[in-house]
């Protein structure tokens, strides 16, 4: 069953003289439960695509359908609620709120929805991510890798149907990367979560069901694996 589909996505930055076409006519369809890795050279447009899929950025052209709904047509409030409930995003730069504790940062999507967090699941997530003892710290008291893990925890906690992760392991050592990928895979399997993950790491890409390669804003290859 298709959960995500984008048609003719174009993204152009800047005006006139210094125009940059970051994405050029991207068509992509992802099924529910798929684990997709997106790879490509630096500057090829991976993050841009992810942002558009997560509705935090608007495409210059084209539309994005999630669960059949056209998110590029949603108004801001609807888009926000949609993001909160359906999509978890992990950013390349972690984007934690600096003035509140790590715990609140992680719980924030739930708090925004005035929902009670599932305590058990929370414990589990922070334990696997190894930040259980850092919950009462402020983000900038954590190392880069710890911050990244907090950002992942935040994205996972709502158990979103779609998880978008931009180099979630970019700042981590091999052992930690392994653990996080395992966590994502577990979540992918047990919750039937759909995951799109950007990575530079070939080993990690090979774990995915499908590898999409982007070059110069276009999809160069799209290969399904065993």
């Amino acid at each position, binding site marked *: 069953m298709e959960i995500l589909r984008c048609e003719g996505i174009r993204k152009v930055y800047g005006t006139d003289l210094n125009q940059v076409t970051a994405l050029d006519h991207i068509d992509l369809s992802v099924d529910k439960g798929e684990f997709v890795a997106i790879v490509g050279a630096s500057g090829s447009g991976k993050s841009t695509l992810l*942002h558009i899929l*997560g509705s*935090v*950025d*608007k495409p210059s052209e084209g539309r994005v359908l999630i669960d059949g709904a056209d998110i590029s047509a949603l108004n*801001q*409030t609807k888009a*926000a*609620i*949609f*993001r*909160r*409930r359906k999509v978890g*995003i992990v*950013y390349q*730069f*972690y*984007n*934690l*709120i*600096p*003035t*509140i504790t790590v715990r*609140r940062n992680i*719980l*924030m*999507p739930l*708090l*925004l*929805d005035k929902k009670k967090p599932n305590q058990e699941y929370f414990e589990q997530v922070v334990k696997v991510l190894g930040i259980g003892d850092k919950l009462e710290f402020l*983000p*900038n008291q954590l190392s*880069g890798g710890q*911050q990244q893990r907090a950002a992942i925890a*935040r994205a996972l906690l709502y158990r979103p149907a779609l998880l978008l992760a931009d180099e979630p392991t970019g700042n981590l050592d091999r052992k930690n990367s392994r653990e996080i990928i395992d966590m994502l895979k577990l979540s992918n399997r047990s919750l039937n979560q759909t995951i799109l993950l950007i990575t530079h790491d070939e080993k990690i890409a090979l774990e995915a069901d499908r590898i999409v390669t982007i070059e110069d804003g276009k999809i160069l290859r799209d290969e399904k694996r065993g």
Partner: protein
Amino acid sequence: MWKNYSYDYLKKNKASSYSIIIGAFIAALFLSFLCSLFYNFWLDNIEGTRQEEGGWHGRITGELGAEEIVKISHFANVEKAVVREETAGEGQTSVDIYFSNKRTVYQDMCSIAESLGLTEDACSYNYQLLSLYFIRIPGDDKPRMLMPAYLAVVALVCVSLILVIHNSFAVSQNSRIHQFGIFTSIGATPGQICTCLLQEAFVLGLLPILLGTFLGVLLSLCTVWAMTEFAADLAGGRQMRFGIHPVILAVILLLSVLTVLISAYLPARKLSRMTPLEAIRGTDGMQLKKKRHSRMLSVLFGMEGELAGSALRAQGKALRTTSLSLTLAFLGFMLMQCFFALSGISTDYTYFERYQDVWDIMVQVEDTRIEDFRKAEQMEKAQGVQSSVVYQKAKTLCSLPREVLSEELLSLGGPEAFVEGLSFNGEGNLLVGTTVMILDDRSFEEFCREIGVSPSLSGSILWNSFWDSTHSNFRYPVYIPYVKEKMDTIKLPNAEIPVTALSQKCPLLREEYEDYQLVQFIPASLWKEISGKVGGAEKDMYVRILANQRDSLDDLNTLEKEMIRLLSPEYEIETENRIQERLDNDKMIKGYEFVFGAFCALFAVIGIAHVFSNTLGFLHQRKREFARYMSVGLTPLGMRKMFCIEALLMIGRPLLTALVMTIAAVAFMIKASYIKPMEFVRAAPVVPVFTFLLTAFAFVALAYYLGGRRLLKINLADMLKDDRT
């Protein structure tokens, strides 16, 4: 979001809240000052109207007997009905009616009139009093703009406060744009963000608003007190009592809260509408759109100068309001000071100095003809009087044949070149306006002696001068002769009287003659003969008195009392005395200066507080920028230098702008009033202006000092880490 985010944020970032707190405080202070002041003006207006017109609302006039009056007073909305003492005409009675609900006065009056079998014409209304309650009666044809004006001023102040303080909110909110970007990216709706920001504004603003309201009321109390002290005469000698009503307080609070919330809402709405990624990237932040070098600054102050210049330029938009409010404050203050200095010079010229030796006491005798006045002798002989002149004015036309006009006047084109619509009579003679000054015979004879002609009561003395307004201005007039030296008679309407003499001088009187009039002096006895034919004089006459002792207020007051005793109750009179008038005038100017000054000062306070809060917020926002400078080796000394340059620039530009504009305005005023520039320079308000400027500068410097000290104390690594993690 309040519990989970704002509370912590505000607790940890007190500095960024200062500007908002100050903004809210100022808004409340200003509004409460203004509202309670206006409320008191309003009360005073009502009191004044009550005293002048009475406190009644409607009045019915007609053939009303006791029965009807009882009927009126039993009418539903009628509080009381009072029969007026003064009769309104034959068989007519007027009844003043007081209503409990003023809103329905018109309808009620109509139905009362109807029930008494009278028409609407029988009703009259206390328009002025009712208009003070925003009640407009149909048929009232005066504009009654007082209450709308009050409301308009309050609305204007609200709007300008919003314009000023929304900027503080914008600065504080934009510094967190990144955080709100994260919030929206994880699913906070624009509504939630707006609500959160408004909540913050409310919580931060509440205490300052309460405090500001309280101080504002206190301030208006002081103002009312000061106004009764300094300017009692302005209000017609009525004592103003200070009052405040709970409803007014509620209105003030409501207005302040609304002002603060709207100020917060404007930038919040903009912020909440940004797409998450825009916000996270913070594109609206401190990037320079175009790279420009401040060559002059870098030449003047080196690298630090260039940094300071580009930092200020990058902040262009946020600092624009600061610049503007500073410029306006400077401009307002300087203009006010210069204006008072100029008008002081001008009144001295046109009035006080000019008439210094002309009068000590003026008595205006109402409704009296000079030939009927019997007290001249007694007044002249009274103790302390050095000399007195009794005179009356009459304005009429006289006919002048062209041949008698002086060569000088003819060469300028004659009187018709100066006066529009001059007419000719049947014989082709000019009809020119003439002011006939009728002097008592004794004074007239004295004037004859003064100008060296033998005293005679048979004719008129012409003041042979005409203001040449093409070659001189009113402040330094040049006069040319009006008529030729030879002139035997002058024709007034229905009378021709001999001309005793032509004179370049005129008797010293405190009179301003109309431009281009032919002024002539005639003795009262002559006037008595011709007045029946020529026409009437003005209804009042005057006595000008010079005193023996001219320098003390007490002496003049004593003399003034003596004159009043001599003349009343026989004559109805009004008196003035020179020293008292000077004092009153000074007092009035002081009063005006005080009121204007208070407004200017408040304005300046807004400007300065704004600078203060903005500078603090601005510096706080830039801590990472400074950290970068320091991490690449800018020394604390260099930072301080940079701060100094920034402070200088921040105040320098508004100052220059205001200065240039003031100079232009003053130059214009000087030109328009024909005052010699040097005279203004001598009286220029250097001290107050300097004090004001220095105060403003001190505040900006203080803000930079405080902000800078904080920044220099912060740990470098902490600053670099900042919030982009």
